[in-house]
């Protein structure tokens, strides 16, 4: 017993009350979500600062006599003269599969009222993008379920494809459709018990969006059953500019966890023009020098470092990927404005949506001439390449001829045929929102038009014909669709089967 007492006494005498060194400063100026702090001689760039009462800030400007910091949370509680401490930590967000199905804010805190998030890993919000050694070129497809995109502007895993267009031209819808399609594919593969299948998880980052819009997207995703594969990261229009500036980086960190752990993720930044505006506000109140359109000089680097974090990682480093679909809103179709040109030059292609097409009823209103995918064709499956290889050229020719044909009535048979084919393709590419189409169905329908089965169907009946043909194929020839999906190519056998199916279906169509 006396031994025990001695041991305890030894413990007491050995125990030192360790006093940690801290670095403190004093708030000299506070306002507009930005604080100027004196002292803090040891602070690091981008370090988290503790303002007390659970309020944190980030040191963004290190100047000769003071530190400029942005405040996360309610800055009105901070008073001039209050004490600030360094934390020695960078801003971090929780990551992992525990976030799936949840709605979180820029700090990774849940805002959906479904209780705390189960996560034991955190990632820094600002992270250096994977280098050239770790990367691999894009080679696997991301199927958006939108026929016009999958056929003409294919997207691969690890690609960054910009969605650009005026207000209300269906930019968000393309993103939402893509998320719904991923969930559909994931569910189908899970049901089939496919072991080699690599699911794609979705991250939707809402930057400066109206709360009602976010609620609508959330609703659509829930109705479509896509939420179990989706994380929504929100800094709404009513959140501070600081949070709006940080939220895409938080989303990227959440996506990087999937990439680093050998999984595939898709991230949608909706939208980067609002992000640039939030960053401009933060920079201006920090009194950083402004440049063109009052944006700070590093607005290009802001987006390039964000989008560079999307990558396809090689097998040796885990074979994961992070695909980015940034959205940028243009004013009156001006793609040569500052932010659109910046983001166009950073991304691997863009999907350009036009107001005119939208109001002509061509939805999704994708402009074929201005939309490109610089790396995605390497990721397209063979079946799509076989049937869609010529479509972009055909459509471009059609647009040119259509303008020309308005003036003349006498056209030769070849031109006439091209025009008729073009009209049918345009009609085929019309697609309802939130209604993604499986890739095998897309291949089958495009094969049909390429093999002249639609030439005698009137243009206004095309959509009806397509719907009925799909019904027929799904109910009567499901094996054929499955074969296209598993073989990923249209072999001679499949072509013969398709021909037989069309010959059987066509006489029954009225």
């Amino acid at each position: 017993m006396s031994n025990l007492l001695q041991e305890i006494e030894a413990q007491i005498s050995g125990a030192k009350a360790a006093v940690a060194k801290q670095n403190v400063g004093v708030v000299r100026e506070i306002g507009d979500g930005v604080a100027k702090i004196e002292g803090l001689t040891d602070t690091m760039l981008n370090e988290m600062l503790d303002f007390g009462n659970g309020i944190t800030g980030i040191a963004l400007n290190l100047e000769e006599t003071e530190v400029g910091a942005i405040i996360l949370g309610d800055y009105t509680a901070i008073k001039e003269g209050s004490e600030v401490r360094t934390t020695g930590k960078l801003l971090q967000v929780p990551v992992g599969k525990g976030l799936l199905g949840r709605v979180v804010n820029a700090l990774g805190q849940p805002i959906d009222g479904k209780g705390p998030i189960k996560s034991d890993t955190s990632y820094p919000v600002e992270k250096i993008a994977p280098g050239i050694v770790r990367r691999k070129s894009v080679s696997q497809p991301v199927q958006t379920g939108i026929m016009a995109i999958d056929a003409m502007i294919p997207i691969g895993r690890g690609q960054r494809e910009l969605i650009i267009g005026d207000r209300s031209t269906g930019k968000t819808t393309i993103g939402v459709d893509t998320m719904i399609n991923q969930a559909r594919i994931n569910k189908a593969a899970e049901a089939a018990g496919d072991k080699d299948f690599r699911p794609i998880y979705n991250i939707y980052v809402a930057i400066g969006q109206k709360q009602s819009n976010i609620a609508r997207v959330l609703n659509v995703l829930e109705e479509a059953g896509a939420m179990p594969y989706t994380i929504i990261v929100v800094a709404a229009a009513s959140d501070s500019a600081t949070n709006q500036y940080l939220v895409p980086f938080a989303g990227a960190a959440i996506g990087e966890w999937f990439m680093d752990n050998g999984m595939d993720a898709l991230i949608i930044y909706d939208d980067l023009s609002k992000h640039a505006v939030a960053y401009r506000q933060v920079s201006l109140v920090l009194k950083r020098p402004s440049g063109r359109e009052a944006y700070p000089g590093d607005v290009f680097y802001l987006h390039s470092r964000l989008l560079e974090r999307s990558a396809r990682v090689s097998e040796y480093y885990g074979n994961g990927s992070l695909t980015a679909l940034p959205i940028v809103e243009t004013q009156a179709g001006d793609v040569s404005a500052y932010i659109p040109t910046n983001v166009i030059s950073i991304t691997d292609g863009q999907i350009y949506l036009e107001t005119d097409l939208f109001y002509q009823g061509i939805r999704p209103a994708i402009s074929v001439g201005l939309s490109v995918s610089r790396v995605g064709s390497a990721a397209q499956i063979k079946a799509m390449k076989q049937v869609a290889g010529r479509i972009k050229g055909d459509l471009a020719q059609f647009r040119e001829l259509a303008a020309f044909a308005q003036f003349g009535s006498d056209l030769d048979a070849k031109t006439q045929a091209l025009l008729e084919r073009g009209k049918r393709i345009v009609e085929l590419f019309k697609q309802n929102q939130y209604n993604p189409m499986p890739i095998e169905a897309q291949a089958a329908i495009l094969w049909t038009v390429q093999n002249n089965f639609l030439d005698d169907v009137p243009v206004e009946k095309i959509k009806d014909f397509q719907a009925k043909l799909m019904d027929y194929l799904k109910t009567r020839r499901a094996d054929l669709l499955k074969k296209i999906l598993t073989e990923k190519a249209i072999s001679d056998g499949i072509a013969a089967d398709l021909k037989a199916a069309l010959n059987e279906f066509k006489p029954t169509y009225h």
Partner: protein
Amino acid sequence: MKISKQALREARELFRTCQVNGLLDESRVRQALALLSEKKPRGYMEILGRLHRLVKLDLERRMVKVESATPLPPDMQNDVAGQIKKKYGNGMNISFTQNPALIGGLRIQAGSDLYDGSVKTRLEKLEESFENA
């Protein structure tokens, strides 16, 4: 107050020349002030304002505030002062004050470095750890 770049530069230069071996020399500062008010170079008010700020920050950087709940006995004061000198070198302006709110222990702030070993802070930390648990 908006201050011109030239004034900023000149104030910084002046501040540097007032330093001897990295420490601010009071007589040199007074000399500089006298010269400034005599010669009145362009923007001398701005330079003076900036110099005031630089000197103020330098003094704050060299100020060491030792707080304790009860007055420290002289030998302990010497001990603390010696340790501070060992760590931060000469030129530190050490002041001892009494703050019963600390309950016990010491709170030493040297410039922007803070060593807080007070009972009050430890209790607060304990409270926080209970709240987070």
